């Protein structure tokens, strides 16, 4: 399978994602320039972390208007796999591909630290290499990761098993202390109802090599590879 990493002018985890996918996961990976109109036949689009257009306005608010994002939107609507990491998650919310919004972290500071997240649903294309309840240690690095959605949306997301990751402690317990950014329901990652779009605040590409302290982030990429490379996997739209 082939990954494509979107490059906005202010993306800064684009090469990190490329490195993890190309060198740690050993899969063909291409860069997709935000002004282009072509997804180069990739099987999975990765929206990386960073500050897409500076994010002086609401995070991700300008990125949704870029030419390439119109392609990504169509690709996702057609069932193509898309994963948004950190700023990529924020862009997916602005694009309307995922429900909810991001507020500033509850302590009103940027937070960069390893956190624990629990797999809430292992029957997704992004988590099938793991198991439900499994605790992953993956870093976060964001100012706006405090997930918010109105009560009705939140109930739907919960009821449909769309919550993929929740912040927890090392033992898998969801606590206020472990929910460092203050997200509602300690949500760290969600998927859409169709199951082909994932947004997550933690950075799996920063936890893909033992030298950097954790390989738990590989679970997400391994799951995608498993899902998209298995015989009979859904053909690209």
């Amino acid at each position, binding site marked *: 399978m082939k990954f494509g990493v979107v490059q906005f*002018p202010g993306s800064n985890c684009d090469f990190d994602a490329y490195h993890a996918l190309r060198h740690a996961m050993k899969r063909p990976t291409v860069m997709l320039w935000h002004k282009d109109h072509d997804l180069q036949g990739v099987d999975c689009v990765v929206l990386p972390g960073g500050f897409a257009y500076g*994010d002086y306005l609401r995070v991700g608010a300008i990125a949704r208007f870029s030419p390439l994002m119109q392609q990504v939107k169509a690709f996702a609507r057609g069932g193509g796999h898309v994963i948004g990491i950190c700023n990529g998650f924020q862009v997916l919310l602005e694009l309307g591909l995922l429900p909810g919004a991001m507020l500033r972290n509850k302590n009103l500071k940027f937070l960069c630290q390893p956190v624990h997240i629990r797999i809430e649903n292992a029957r997704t294309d992004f988590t099938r290499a793991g198991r439900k309840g499994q605790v992953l240690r993956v870093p976060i690095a964001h100012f706006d990761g405090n997930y918010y959605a109105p009560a009705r949306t939140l109930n739907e997301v919960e009821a449909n098993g769309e919550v993929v990751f929740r912040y927890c402690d090392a033992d898998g317990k969801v606590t206020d202390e472990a929910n460092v950014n203050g997200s509602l329901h300690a949500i760290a990652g969600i998927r859409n109802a169709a199951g082909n779009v994932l947004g997550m605040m933690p950075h799996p590409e920063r936890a893909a*090599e033992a030298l950097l302290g954790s390989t738990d982030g590989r679970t997400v990429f391994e799951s995608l590879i498993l899902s998209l490379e298995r015989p009979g996997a859904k053909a690209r739209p």
Partner: protein
Amino acid sequence: MIDKALLDQHNLTEDEYRLIVELIGKEPNLTELGIFSVMWSEHCGYKSSRVHLKKFPTEGPRVVQGPGENAGILDIGDGQVVVFKIESHNHPSYIEPYQGAATGVGGILRDIFTMGARPIAVLDSLRFGPPDDAKNRSVMEGVVSGISGYGNSIGVPTVGGEVYFDPCYNLNPLVNVFCLGLADKDKIFYAKAEGAGNKVLYVGAKTGRDGIHGATMASAEFGKETEHKRPNVQVGDPFKEKLLLEACLEVMDRGLIVGIQDMGAAGLTCSTTEMAAKSHMGIVVDLDQVPQREMGMTPYEILLSESQERMLLVATPGKVAAVQAVFAKWDLDAPVIGEVVEGGRALISFKGEVVVDIPVDAVVNLCPAYDRPILRPGPPPPAPPLESLPVPDDLGAVLLKLLASPTIADKEWVFRQYDHMVQTNTVLVPGADAAVLRIKGSPKALAMTLDGNGLYTRLDPRTGARIAVAEACRNLACVGARPIGVTNCLNFGNPEKPEVMGQFEQAVAGIAEACRTFGIPVTGGNVSFYNDTEGLSIHPTPVLGIVGLIDDIREIARPGFRAAGDAVVLIGDDREELGGTEYLKTHYGLEAGAPPAIDLEQEKRNQEFLIESIEAGLVASAHDLSEGGLAVALAECAFHARGRIGCRVDLESPLRDDALLFGESQSRILVTCRKAGLDAFLKSAAAHGVTARAIGRTGGSELVIQHAGRTVLQLTVRQAFRAWKDSLPSFFQVKT
């Protein structure tokens, strides 16, 4: 008409003015006077420091570029170089902490990528007044968010640094930012304006009225009117800088330009005249072509503006279109504003009229150097004799107090606001003795650290400076890295005061001696004088930034105890040295006595032995002893261990308990080894001429220290950990 009052406003003396008239053969007009005032300021001209800085060793087999360029360059083999430098942004950071610190980061990043290197790491050395004061807290919060806001956005990790607190920084915080970049050796660029007929392009942000005379401001003492200087501070735009970074690296990578210079201090003035002077050429500039974001700017304002995120490029006429296409891809303008010419003059026009016509050599190279009067520092204020200071009854309570003292306490509150992992190279994160970054595609790794203890330097400038170099190298040794080069930021008071120049002269001598002993070249740095506010000078604070190389990333050491049951070994000798210690300051409220002595040759032997032992796989963990001495180091090793591991040590020493536990004797390192490897380790130490004693073992949930069979300290690791961990956040309590 130029009179004394106008010269005063421009920080120029009458003698300097006479020299300008002589050099340019005419009375300068106001714009020309402005140009000389910034280029001949202390900040740009190094007029008080130049005669002393010559003492630094600057040569070595790895040196590709020593002092005098935007940054120093060292060869690390395999066709790669590191480009690194440190800069101060002290004055702006006091006036406007967020933007002052943010633009400090922006400026040092440009110094690095202007040479063709991609910045891969930032470290900051910060000094504030104590955090129990609201104003100090607000400065600190602003500075930390400024660094975080800029560095995180542009995607360069802030991987380390240090934070000290002392009342001498109340009105004059120090913000020193270090940056290191990686480049291919055959793709280094310089600030050259070669080839008559080549075009001069302006790229990046538009020019506004911000930061006019920033460099001049940084070259004078502050009084009570600093509030009015806020407009002298620039405003940063990290997104613009990110675009500029990518576009510049792209035109350099594709070989589209001849030379490049960033517009930092003294803006367009500095970049145009320096590029021309370096190539012995002249330059013609049409200010009407300079993109401006405000109406009605005068030539004086355009030339002296320090608006951020701007660069000047020189390209052959045939490549201008290709350069402009790259910048257009990144949504940046790149207008041609001038041309390189023969003749060595800067000819600048505005609305069809020549407004500046001066020889560039006079501006750039002929700034006077002063050998200012020096008053050698006297002996430090003596500490009271130890007999008059009782050994505290409860040494455990003293340790808790030391661990909670802001200088020693955990700095996670600071560094978790920095993205220290972006670019996925960070192997050792902030809090370790030194930051360690892998080099993708290579077994090698880079280590880097910033160090400087202002109190030591105040008490004895020469010894303090030698210790700063030694400690930085020791921090590198603790992770298994050999030092390869040095940059430094020398933060001092008003150089017109002979006692300040005396401190400066001694500190420079100390740094030079230590660098010679370690065989490491100084490749550049920065001098920040006039760190006086309302007549009070800061501690003289040289900050050393030292870069180390690790041959094999698999052979590094970390500070935390690795496992229970390992042997705890102390390398180095304990002496009765309490002068200038954090203990004396925290427990007795004394900043006095002579700082610890240092034997540089012994230090070097200890470090070399440590590095070899790490490479031989004999070391399970290593941590340097610094502020707070042995007891604090033991506690920190316990805190850094996964799952927090305690230890029990049994000391035999003629020293009194407090000197043994909290003394800051130099050249000491705390190491742990597997029991099976202990004998080999100790034998090897003896063979290297190094003192190493097994003092205890790791394990349990307590820190227990015995002295001559008596238990002198016993605490749970948890209790000690909380004191260390909770201290800094407690000053900034936010209810959530």
